[in-house]
């Protein structure tokens, strides 16, 4: 199976690889896995407390090229979005943008799940902090 050019580009030059401080209350961390292949993905967002806008996003993925590309793309899309907008990102958008073949759809689902998990973690922290 051949990867699309966009996947290869994200794979060779992944954007926003790294970590944000997990303990920071402005940071939400999502850690998800795909049981079929055993791949794991960590995605983090930092939310500007004043504006409610995501001002930074990082990821680290141990998995296939499509999972790396999906999470790399997701972090690009997340920056500058509000939490509501971020939750509108769907795996089909990622599939389209990266032209993922059907067997790689689960890799994009992983990225969508990671976004949701990161935002849920952020919201939990805000509630706990009150």
């Amino acid at each position, binding site marked *: 199976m051949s990867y699309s050019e966009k996947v290869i580009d994200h794979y060779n030059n992944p954007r926003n690889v790294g970590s944000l401080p997990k303990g920071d209350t402005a940071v939400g961390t999502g850690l998800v*896995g795909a049981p079929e292949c055993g791949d794991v993905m960590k995605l983090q967002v930092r939310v500007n407390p004043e504006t409610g806008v995501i001002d930074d996003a990082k990821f680290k993925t141990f998995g296939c090229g499509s999972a790396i590309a999906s999470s790399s793309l997701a972090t690009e899309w997340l920056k500058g979005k509000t939490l509501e907008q971020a939750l509108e990102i769907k795996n089909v958008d990622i599939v389209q943008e990266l032209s993922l073949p059907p067997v790689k759809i*689960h890799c994009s689902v992983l990225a969508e799940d990671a976004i949701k*998990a990161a935002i849920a973690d952020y919201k939990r922290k805000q509630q706990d902090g009150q």
Partner: protein
Amino acid sequence: MSSEARTLTLQSCRHCGAGAPAQVHFCPQCDRILTLARHGDYFSFFGLPRKLTIDLADLEQRFRALSRQFHPDYFYNASTPERLASLERSSYLNDAFRVLKQPLDRAEYLLKVEGLPSVGRHQDAKELPAGVLEEVFALNEELDDIRAAREAGATPDQLMARLDAARRPVEERAARQEAQLEALFSRWDRQVDEKSSPDVRRATLESLRDLIQERSYIANLIAAVNRERGES
């Protein structure tokens, strides 16, 4: 549907029209081989209850006996439907044997026929026992570091020591999972014997599915560590 209901499902003989229970392979009335029915499952095919603990010697004996009965050579002069039936039953028998003799494949198969396939589900960290994904993630990071150290010229001894240290906690977890798996196998079998309620049995199957998924992460990791060891 319960396993009892399934074994009662009737098939009928294409030749004489007589009915037969699902786990029977030859018509009780005219003795001809029966066309393979769509329902039924690997367990009933072998005449076994849907239990997870299987005596392998007994399974193998059943396999050999059935292979002989279905052997296409015996149907050389038979009618086309019978020849087809013998081929179908032979190939179904081989599939069934391959799956049932491996405990994990057997468990996955049980989940499938009970309507809880284990694949194709994503899960986030909360669904796994505390720490599994974290452990998987941390070990992947350590493997990355070890690769970097190799490239930076670390000695094989140093790399081995790090790999062994990294491997220990996952192997301990793998051993714990093995024990849990055994416990779930016996719990399921007991519930089948005691005809426990569907809810109770379903809960057991759900635990089984979760454990199998958790196990796949750990198995992948151990494979990755072993690959690194091979290269060091």
